[in-house]
């Protein structure tokens, strides 16, 4: 490098060029010239540095400071601050995830410091147009070594001993391939580089070609020497013009220096290279097809054998490797096989370059040791999933590969492991998918790609993949048929067995692997016409409603609120969900996380629009009720007045039944009244909707507990023809540590219930709450309101892993509750008198990934410590002691101890008993329970009458005006205001405040009406 004090490296890889790197470079040179710094600071345009999504990026040497998102307007400040005054421009450097902490130096950034760069050793460091810079970094030394001190056999042996496997996808040992070709007795042999990178989202080879073309050339000359070839070809797709240009340039330089052509380095060995451009056919990644294409024919594969090493290009022995493979060669020759083999795993040596794409923070190019844990690749190097979404699966190996779901985040990324899981290493494309990805749709996407790229030569690939695509397509459209999954498996396995080349043999992989790991999604599409991820658009009207467990017509009620037609809006809401007022306070709103407006200027505040809607109601208007003498005369019972039971009662009443609701407590509401504090759900709101259900014909009998005051059999004996069991999961769970039993320690649920039902509750001065769910937060915030001086939450995982809602955690924070994470209780410490004085804790660290895709807390190395507390509330979960209450009626339980019930009808193993809500699922959400109650009501009616009368299950087109031609105006989400902390921590007043009408209306009008035009007829007013 030049004799200057500072080098400013500007990445000019494809991604950075696209985001304006060349302009930045020009502006930088101009700025340096203006300030007469041009002699001191040299601007170097390099190849790809990797973090493409942050482009344009730049690196300052020797400081090692990494700048991202550098635009032309930032240039003067960068020059002034950093290059002149030596001060880092903090706003342009990386920050540790979720913090304000800067990580200015490249070596501080996990994206970089976990990488090991062999292939990309020069990429982003040198100017790819200057052979001197390549040579300065040991370039062409390996070639000199090979030509002057090694026999061709020794070169092939060295490569074989290094354990290098072909990086193009199949992973065949490179040295072995070379040795086969070497052993062929033929004057004419060829060495070919596959630079026809065709996987969607893969750009590893391109980056090497653009960023360090000499590493490819050197590898190829060494390979040519090893096998005895004198002519080579680089087959590169025409869509890579910059790569072609830079490679062309490099070839010229190499020829000029005698590194290519006749008598290389005076050793007598001659070899030259030619570029051949392909027109971008995926099948040309298959080596025989690629060779056929070089020969000037349509790129179609030929049967193997004969293998190219015996009879390849123009029938001559040929070796074909991809760019990344060749780029590994020079370091292997120079530093030796043993050095290379020290990186990687037992069976897979060296590094692998991956193109990270999809739902991952740091999309871009990385090179990591083979065998890195998948979780580390995605979360540490890749920075995890954007937008706080959950990781769902990663597709490895592009359209020929397979997906790896979250329960396998611990696996090492190497050839054998991936294959065992139904994926492949492939050429290194990693597409990260979050919870909003439909796996059937993803399979369809990849299959569509391979189907279109099939050369059409053999029927399994040409026709078979088409038939698979047709099946997957119809599944996505909700037209799947019973047996389609089996058909896909049979056809897919047959295509793998019978296709001519690798394209066909691997084309079914995305389908087979998604079936293997996500079969339930296929089945949901086929049987329930339900796309959980909200992707397959023909299956639903709008993503929000699709995500709602109660199937509320969200665009409908929201747009009615937008026209201030509150009564109609509420009526529409209660078509599917009676507990509008309750849900307006406590629903965890899965709808909002699927709102399409999130991609524009923020998801619609659906829950708070609802809040405004229900506030306009004084007396609930009763819904449409089917009058039926017959149903009215039938006795039906509901056990438990929680949200599931209330919902079941509501819908049974709509069908003309007069259900009797038995409730163990003196108040209706279940967890709504027992656990959820009034500051979140004012009791009057709850009561209003209970009263509405009573007004529809339901009767409530309080203080009647199943198993204590009556049994299922006694109900039957009394003439009840069908019974819904919605008893929830009412038992608090114990921590299981010494000192837990005795005064001063409560389970979360008992603690909350004590106050909520009985109005009594006292806590000590220092309260420790153990757990990370909503109940823990509720307990902590209630404790504060009951007079505790300090409240601490102890949670064994990280804050990001807390199952409680983000807004609840934030509210607790705001109220002064201290949240200690990565802390696990070892013992409840008591003094001699037995009084609780603290919780003995140990520090936790994050270990491997568990099945849920979260990193498991494991014991840390630090000594234990005591958190002082006189009251301990353990809110770590709830359960149901099912066997205690069924009392002889045969009800099957699932493996978690809850009632086994049909998710569609609520039916249990006893035909007249139905169940739903937490009693069947374990602790879940209010709206899940409401949905389950509705389904069970329809199921009970079906059982009693033999027909489905759920008349409310219809698509109602919102009767409001909507102009689809108007572009949405930018309008950020309206925030919800809360009571000031001081005004709320001493009482149980509702914390969230109401919106003024104009705010609510404006928010409602932000709805994009995704449902518009999907009701099967022309839309209008």
């Amino acid at each position, binding site marked *: 490098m030049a004799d200057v004090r500072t080098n400013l490296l500007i990445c000019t890889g494809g991604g950075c060029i696209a985001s304006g790197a060349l302009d930045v470079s020009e502006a930088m040179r101009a700025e340096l010239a203006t300030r007469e710094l041009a002699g001191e600071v040299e601007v170097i345009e390099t190849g790809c540095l990797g973090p493409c999504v942050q482009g344009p990026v730049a690196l300052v040497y020797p400081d090692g400071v990494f700048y991202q998102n550098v635009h032309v307007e930032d240039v003067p400040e960068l020059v002034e601050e950093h290059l002149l005054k030596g001060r880092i421009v903090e706003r342009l450097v990386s920050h540790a995830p979720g913090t304000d902490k800067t990580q200015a130096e490249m070596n501080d950034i996990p994206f970089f410091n976990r990488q090991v760069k062999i292939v990309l050793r020069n990429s982003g460091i040198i100017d790819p147009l200057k052979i001197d810079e390549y040579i300065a970094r040991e370039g062409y030394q390996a070639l000199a070594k090979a030509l002057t001190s090694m026999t061709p056999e020794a070169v092939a042996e060295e490569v074989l001993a290094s354990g290098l496997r072909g990086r193009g996808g199949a992973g065949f040992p490179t040295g072995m391939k070379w040795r086969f070709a070497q052993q062929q007795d033929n004057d004419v042999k060829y060495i070919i580089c596959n630079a026809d990178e065709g996987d969607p989202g893969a750009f590893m080879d391109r980056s090497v070609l653009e960023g360090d073309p000499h590493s490819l050339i050197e590898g190829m000359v060494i390979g040519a020497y090893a096998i005895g070839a004198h002519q080579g070809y680089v087959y590169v797709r025409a869509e890579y013009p910059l790569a072609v240009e830079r490679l062309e340039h490099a070839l010229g330089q190499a020829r000029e220096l005698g590194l290519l052509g006749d008598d290389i380095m005076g050793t007598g060995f001659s070899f030259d290279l030619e570029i051949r451009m392909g027109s971008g056919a995926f099948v040309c990644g298959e080596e025989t097809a690629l060779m056929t294409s070089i020969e000037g024919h349509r790129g179609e594969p030929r049967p193997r054998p004969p293998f190219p090493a015996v009879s390849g290009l123009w029938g001559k022995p040929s070796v074909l490797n991809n760019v990344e493979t060749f780029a590994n060669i020079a370091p292997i020759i120079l530093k030796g096989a043993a050095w290379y083999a020290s990186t990687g795993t037992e069976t897979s040596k060296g590094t692998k370059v991956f193109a990270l794409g999809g739902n991952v923070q740091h999309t871009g190019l990385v090179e990591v040791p083979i065998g890195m844990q998948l979780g580390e690749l995605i979360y540490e190097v890749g920075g995890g999933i954007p937008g706080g979404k959950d990781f769902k699966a990663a597709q490895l190996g592009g359209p020929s590969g397979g997906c790896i779901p979250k329960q396998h985040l611990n696996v090492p990324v190497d050839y054998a492991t991936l294959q065992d899981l139904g994926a492949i290493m492939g050429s290194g494309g990693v597409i990260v998918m979050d919870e909003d990805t439909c796996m059937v749709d993803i399979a369809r996407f990849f299959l569509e790609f391979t189907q279109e790229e099939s050369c059409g030569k053999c*029927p*399994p690939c040409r026709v078979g993949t088409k038939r698979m695509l047709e099946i997957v397509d119809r599944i996505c459209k909700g037209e799947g048929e019973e047996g389609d999954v089996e058909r896909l498996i049979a056809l897919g396995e*047959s295509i793998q067995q019978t296709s001519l080349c690798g394209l066909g043999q691997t084309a079914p992989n995305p389908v087979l692997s998604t079936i293997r790991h996500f079969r339930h999604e296929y089945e949901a599409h086929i049987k329930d016409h339900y796309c959980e991820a909200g992707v397959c658009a023909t299956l639903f009207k709008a993503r929000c409603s699709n995500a709602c467990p109660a199937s509320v017509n969200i665009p409908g009620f929201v747009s009615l609120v937008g026209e201030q037609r509150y009564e109609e809006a509420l009526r529409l809401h209660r078509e599917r969900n009676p507990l509008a007022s309750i849900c307006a306070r406590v629903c965890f709103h899965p709808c909002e996380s699927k709102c399409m407006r999130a991609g524009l200027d923020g998801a619609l505040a659906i829950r708070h629009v609802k809040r405004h809607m229900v506030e306009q109601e004084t007396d609930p208007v009763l819904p449409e009720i089917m009058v039926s003498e017959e149903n009215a005369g039938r006795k039906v019972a509901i056990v438990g007045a929680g949200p599931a039971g209330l919902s079941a009662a509501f819908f049974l009443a709509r069908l003309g039944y007069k259900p009797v609701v038995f409730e163990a407590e003196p108040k209706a509401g279940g967890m709504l009244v027992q656990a959820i504090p009034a500051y979140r759900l004012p009791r009057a709101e709850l009561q209003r909707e209970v009263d509405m259900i009573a007004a529809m014909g339901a009767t409530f009998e309080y203080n009647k507990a199943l198993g204590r005051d009556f049994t299922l059999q006694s109900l039957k004996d009394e003439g009840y023809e069908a019974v819904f069991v919605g008893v929830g999961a009412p038992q608090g769970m114990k921590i299981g540590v010494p000192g837990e039993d005795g005064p001063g320690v409560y389970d979360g649920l008992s603690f909350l219930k004590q106050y909520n039902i009985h109005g009594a509750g006292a806590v000590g001065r220092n309260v420790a709450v153990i757990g990370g769910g909503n109940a823990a937060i509720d307990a902590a915030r209630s404790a504060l309101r009951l007079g505790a001086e300090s409240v601490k939450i102890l949670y064994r995982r990280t804050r990001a892993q807390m199952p409680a809602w983000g807004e609840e955690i934030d509210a607790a924070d705001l109220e002064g509750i201290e949240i200690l994470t990565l802390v696990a209780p070892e013992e409840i410490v008591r003094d001699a008198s037995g009084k609780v004085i603290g919780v003995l804790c140990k520090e936790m660290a994050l270990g491997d990934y568990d099945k849920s895709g979260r990193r498991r807390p494991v014991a840390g190395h630090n000594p234990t410590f005591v958190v002082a507390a006189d009251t301990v509330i353990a809110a770590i979960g709830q359960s149901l002691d099912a066997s205690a209450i069924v009392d002889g009626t045969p009800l099957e339980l699932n493996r978690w101890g809850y009632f086994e019930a049909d998710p569609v009808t609520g039916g249990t193993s006893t035909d007249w008993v139905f169940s739903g809500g937490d009693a069947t699922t374990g602790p879940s959400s209010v709206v899940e329970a409401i949905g389950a109650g509705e389904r069970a009501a329809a199921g009970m009616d079906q059982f009693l009458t033999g027909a489905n009368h759920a008349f409310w299950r219809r698509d109602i087109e919102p009767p409001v005006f909507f102009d689809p031609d108007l572009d949405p105006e930018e309008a950020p989400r309206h925030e919800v205001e809360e009571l000031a902390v001081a005004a709320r921590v001493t009482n149980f007043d509702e914390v969230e405040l109401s919106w003024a009408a104009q705010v609510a209306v404006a928010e409602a009008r932000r709805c994009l009406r995704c449902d518009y035009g999907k009701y099967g007829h022309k839309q209008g007013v």
Partner: protein
Amino acid sequence: MPTLTIDHIKVEVPEGATVLQAARQAGVKIPTLCYLDDVQSIGACRVCLVEVEGARTLVASCSQPASDGMVVKTNSGKVRDGRQMVVELLLSEHDGDCQTCGRSADCELRTLALDLGIGELRYKGEKTFKMIDDSTPALIRDTGKCISCRRCVTVCNEIQQVGGLFAQGRGFATLIGPAFSQNLSDVVCVQCGQCAAVCPVGAIQERNQIDEVWDALEDPTKTVIVQTAPAIRAALGECFEYPAGTLVTGKMVAALRRLGFDAVFDTDFTADLTIMEEGTELLGRLKKALVDGEQVALPQFSSCSPGWINYMEHFNPDMLGNLSTCKSPQQMFGAIAKTYYAEKIGVKPEDMVVVSVMPCTAKKYEAARPEMNDSGVQDVDIVLTTRELGALITQAGIDFRSLADEEMDAPLGISTGAADIFANTGGVMEAALRTAWEIVTQTPFPFPNLHVAPIEGLEGVKVATVKVEGAKGDWAFLEGADLKVAVAHGLGNAQKVIDQVKNGEAEYHFVEVMTCPGGCIGGGGQPRFTTNEVRKARMAAIYREDEGREVRKSHENAAVCALYEEYLGAPCGEISHRLLHTHYFEHDRV
């Protein structure tokens, strides 16, 4: 010599043999579809899949080399399932209107489905894009029936080197056809019909003209006469279950009479006439070159094969002058029938219908050429292939096998053995030599049994040198000359000869070219399926026909002599020139 085990049978095979060949040697039948003996073993259709111990997937036996110690299963459950799926998939994309398809009786796909016991299609869906290309007089393509086996592509590109058909597009939309989805009439297609001859299904067939024949025969105002090409008699029997190589001349004549033709004639007659004209033309060229020192195009190329003429017009327009100006025997027949014969029987040419039966699809195109109307009307009206004649006879309900032999009608049914061998590659050359020699030397043709062995057989390019001894009279200038001749069949081979000539690597005086491998006996209109074995059998039959004749030299054909005396005057004379010779046109090489 590798030894392998196929279905528990040990078999030793020659080096380089494929598993398929090894299986055949072991007596194990493996179904095939895209495979063509000696032509194509590309492993495309996946029907010949077998299980090879140790292989990751099933392998195509047609392209898998047999290796020592290999253990092969051709009939395991895995193999049967794989083959069934492959054929089911083909059926699922195929436009299966079997009831009305012209290939219904000999469709290879249908046979495969039956053989593999396919009872239902488990995977239904979109069909192959259907487009009927009936742009040429000779061939009709139906893309909906194409199963992309690539047989036609290989034959068109590698055997004929015409390059009229390719795979194009990708994925399910891959279609076989002319470049840029054009019509056959817009590309270099020479209409030889070799594609139709190898197509396993009904995707490429000849244009069916049977109904036109029925209409003509029904029309009382028309005199309908028929000519049959030399190659028909050695192949028509295959349409009626006779083994390849059975001569059915007499039955064929009888059948044609039963069908109601007013006269049954023989293209052999005009083949003899061709020899007179073409031989004279050649001698004339030689005289001009050697005696008069004129610039003449040599070698002279034969012009009997219309696919070859099309090929020259497309690919070698600079050498059109080398083509003999003689019309093909078919067209000479049409011109003579509608003039000489029509006058003889007192029928106006417009009231006469000339039907040809040809082994060839390009003949349909040739008959339709606008310049082929020297009789004042179209000289040849309808051209049937051998296959169509077979179908015509079947439609008429004639029990072919029980027919008694009958003779052709005079005068246009009178011919010689020299005309018969026009059907074989090398035959035109041999016939020409028999006559030319005797004209030049006035001594008997000296070759044993009149056969010129070096130019017979299936070698692609055959050459011979005949030293002229005893040249007399006008032809004395040829005394001692080495007459160099070449014979090529299959257009790829023809181009080799042309290249030799263009590059000055060889000097020939006369070159015979037949478009189709084996000559007309291997024509695109012959009964399916034409393999080299079949070609050999048909060729042997043709030589038998020749050898069974009393007269085996064209110039000894009394009817031809009478024609000259009564009507034409001398060979290459003025009337001959008008009626029997033609000219050629340069075509684009698209």
